[in-house]
Structure formats: structure tokens, C-alpha cells
């Protein structure tokens, strides 16, 4: 937007493009988040695994052992964990992104920098936390008889892409709106409570099909990008070792995966537009 006299309007960013341009700053903010999160704690980063591990154990015993999903679904532990990794990535990224602008209020109020950096950084932090979980998942899958294949790797990557793009878009919207109405961070917590049950993480998707029948309700359930991402992860890590349960993958999974990715990209674009619109008033509202 440079004019003839070289004068430009300050504070008018290029949104996410600026984040790409300022990779150095993004990296430092991610590093800072990781450092600050575990300041003064003996176990440090380890805490981010204790929480999902305990949650996983609870679900495993409650659903797998007591409700006997163990018997109907081969390698239920791997099935459960594959979906769980996806949902905990989503939850962490979304929950923190929604609070990111408010939490960085002192900076937003005083210095101009592309504010998209904050929600994007939280997504990166969540992705970094996800990595070791995927390693654990992979070990579990190997024990259950997993072998590497192109299909497995592709579905994991596609699944990750769907969630990462989706949560970036939702994060932008909620981070921006939360500046004006702090109610939204509570709304996010509420959504996260429900989200784990809206995807076939704790139960096989056939339960939903049998309960809802083949109507639009089922289509709605399957249209959830998170459902598709969860299934893609199960396809990647659980399915190769449990071929007998092939009916537990939704039909046309890859096509649905691509559609979900496109849908998430739309969410991201809308998120950026909403964010850019509201951003002008961040400094005076905080």
C-alpha cells in the first residue's frame, strides 16, 4: 500500500501474511510460552502429559473395561488414544487461543505488532505438545501390530492439517470476540466439554449410525471436521492393526477428509476477516 510519497498507514497489517513474515518473532513467542508455562515447576513439560494420560486412563477403564468396549473393538486402547490425541490438540489450542489476546493485553495495548501472532503461537505450542503424544501413540500402535504405509502417513497428515487449520480459524474468531465479551472464554470451555463426545473418540461411530439412522442428523454428525480428523487418525494408527474392524471407519473417509480441509480453510478465512475487523479496536477495549 505504499504511496508515491512513501507514506503508509501504521497499524494496518496484512493479517496472517504478516505472521509468516515475522517467523522470528513467532518462534520467540512460542518459546516464551513454553518457558513461562512451566516456570517454577519441577516436572516441567511432563505435566502436559500427565493430564491427558490420567484422562486417558479414566476413559480406558470406564469405557473399555467396565462398559466392555474392549471386547467389541479390537485394540480399543489404540483406538481411544488415536482420537484422544486429536481432541487434546484441538482443546489445548482452542482454549488457549481464545484467551491469547486478553492474556497479552499489556503488549496489545502499547505496541503495534500483528496480533494474529498470539492465537497462531498458541496453536504452535499445542502442536509441540502433541508431538510426544503421537510418539506414544505410535509405540502403542506398533505393539498392536501396526506397520507403516503410505495410506497411514497420509491420513495422519490430512487429519492433522484439518484440525490445525480449523483451530486456527476458530482461535482467531474467539480470541477477537473475547476482547469485547469475556463470556466467550467460558463458552469455549463449554464447547470443549462437549466436543469429545461429538466425535467417535470414546465409542465407535457405528453406535451413532445405529442410533440416528441414515438421515440428515447422521450427515450432520459426519460433517463435523473433527469427526473426520479423529477418524483419519484412527485410520492411520489403529486400523492397520485391526483390519477386522473395517466397518468402524466411515465410508469415503479420504474424500470427506479433503472436504473437511476445504471447510476448515473457509473457517480460517472467515476467522481472519472477523479478526481484522475487530482488531482495530483491541487497544482501546482492553
Amino acid at each position, binding site marked *: 500500500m505504499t504511496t508515491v510519497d512513501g507514506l*503508509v498507514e*501504521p497499524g494496518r497489517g496484512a493479517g496472517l501474511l504478516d505472521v509468516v513474515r515475522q517467523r522470528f518473532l513467532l518462534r520467540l513467542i512460542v518459546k*516464551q510460552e513454553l518457558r513461562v508455562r512451566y516456570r517454577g515447576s519441577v516436572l516441567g513439560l511432563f505435566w502436559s502429559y500427565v493430564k491427558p494420560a490420567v484422562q486417558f486412563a479414566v476413559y480406558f477403564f470406564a469405557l473399555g473395561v467396565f462398559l466392555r468396549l474392549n471386547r467389541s473393538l479390537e485394540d480399543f486402547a489404540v483406538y481411544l488414544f488415536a482420537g484422544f490425541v486429536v481432541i487434546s490438540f484441538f482443546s489445548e489450542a482452542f482454549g488457549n487461543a481464545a484467551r491469547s489476546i486478553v492474556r497479552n493485553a499489556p503488549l496489545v495495548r*502499547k*505496541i503495534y505488532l500483528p496480533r494474529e501472532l498470539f492465537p497462531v503461537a498458541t496453536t504452535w505450542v499445542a502442536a509441540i505438545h502433541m508431538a510426544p503424544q503421537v510418539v506414544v501413540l505410535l509405540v502403542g500402535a506398533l505393539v498392536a501390530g501396526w506397520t507403516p504405509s503410505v495410506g497411514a502417513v497420509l491420513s495422519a497428515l490430512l487429519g492433522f492439517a484439518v484440525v490445525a487449520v480449523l483451530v486456527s480459524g476458530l482461535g482467531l474468531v474467539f480470541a477477537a470476540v473475547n476482547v469485547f465479551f469475556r463470556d466467550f472464554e467460558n463458552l469455549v470451555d463449554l464447547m470443549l466439554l462437549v466436543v469429545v463426545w461429538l466425535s467417535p473418540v470414546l465409542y465407535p461411530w457405528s453406535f451413532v449410525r445405529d442410533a440416528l439412522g441414515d438421515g440428515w442428523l447422521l450427515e450432520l454428525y459426519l460433517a463435523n471436521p473433527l469427526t473426520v480428523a479423529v477418524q483419519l487418525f484412527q485410520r492411520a494408527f489403529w486400523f492397520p492393526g485391526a483390519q477386522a474392524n473395517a466397518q468402524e471407519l466411515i465410508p469415503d473417509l479420504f474424500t470427506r477428509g479433503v472436504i473437511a480441509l476445504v471447510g476448515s480453510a473457509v473457517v480460517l478465512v472467515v476467522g481472519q476477516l472477523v479478526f481484522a475487523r475487530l482488531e482495530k479496536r483491541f487497544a482501546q477495549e482492553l
Partner: protein
Amino acid sequence: MATALAVDGVSKRFVLRRVRSMKEIAVYVLQRKPIAETFLALDDVSLHVQEGEAVGLLGLNGSGKSTLLKLMSGVLRPDGGKVRVKGRVAGLIEVGAGLHPDLTGRENIFLNGAILGMSEAQVRRSFDAIVDFSEIEQFLDTDVKHYSSGMFLRLAFAVAVHTDPDVFLVDEILAVGDEPFQRKCLERVHRMREEGRTLVVVSHDLEMVQRVCDRGVLLRGGRKVVDGTMREAVDALRAPA
């Protein structure tokens, strides 16, 4: 000379919301009290600054000086009119905003430098100069929260002055630190002037502003009332309104 900073007919209105929750709003509506009031912080202000000029913004508290600086830095956006700048603007607007108490001095130099718009190479290049200037070498690997307030401000100022901006916005900064450090800061500001950088300075320290700036702009109630030499602006400020 070319224009470095152009402020054209800029207005800024703030909404002062008294209430936010539904309960409070209901009470206010029932009592027929206004839920929000607006406040005009800047009213049709125009100001053109040439490259290499040093302008002192004067005015009593609440006259709109800081709001104008924030508009120049891009933190706030005008409701009416236009603000345009040439090159990179860096502000010493409430220094230390970019410092993180839980990071060490070294980490903060990188983080704060990046926040103020420096690239990685730039930070590396000026790292030693920043440490030197701030005089905190010994505490470089200590968390900033353990710094004394003087050390904290010295570090913040050191990073800010090394960002090499084209337009430098200074808000009440030169009141930091002890006397020798203040002198050092002033020298630095003078050197920036000599290098042909554009300065906009807000301060209540009239002696200092007069030494640094040659053009003075006086704001009163969000309007520009004087734009002339520093002397004129100071006299108008001191004269009973």
C-alpha cells in the same frame, strides 16, 4: 525535505462503557441512565512532520498527547482522518511493555527486539551494544522479575534505542534511571537527531523537551492550539488558559 509523518484531520473518540454485564445493563436501562458515554480524545488534529525534524508534543494531562502517539505507532486507529508514516516507526511508549518478567535479560533482548520489529540478524548485530548500553551485563542470565526498576527500564530503553527506527516516538521516557543514565539517554536522542531521524517527544519535563526539540505543538482538550517554535508552545502552555 520529504514528509516523514502526516496526520490529517484526525479524530479519536473513546467509548466509556460504564456497565457490561446484563444485570447492570438492566438496572441502568430501568433507571434511564446512559449505558455508555463517548469522549472525544482528539478533535480534527493535523500535523505534518518533515524528515529529521524533532517535535515536542505538549499539553496538560488528558489533552490527547499519548493518544496521538498511539495513533502514530498504529496501536490505535483513528475514527476520522488519516495518519501516515514513512519507514519504520518505533515507540518508547510506556517502555518495558514488551519485557517479560519470567524470561532472562538475554531472552528479553531477543524477544523485545523482535517485538519492536528487528530481524534476527539485526538483534544479533546490536546485541553487544544493547548490553553495553543497558549496563546489566552481570545480570544478563537472571530473570527480569528480579531486576531493580532502574535496571528494568535501562534494559527496555537500551533495546528500544537500538531498533533503528526512521520515526522515533518518545513518551515520558527520559525520566528513567539515575542521572548518569539519563544523560546517556539524552545523548543518544541527540545522536539520533544528528543522524537525521525524526523524533516526536512527549514529556512534562519542559526543560528537556526544549533542549531536544525545536518545534513545539501544544494540545488542549484534544485540539491543536499552537504549532510553532518550542518557545511559543511552552509559553502558551504556561500562560493561563
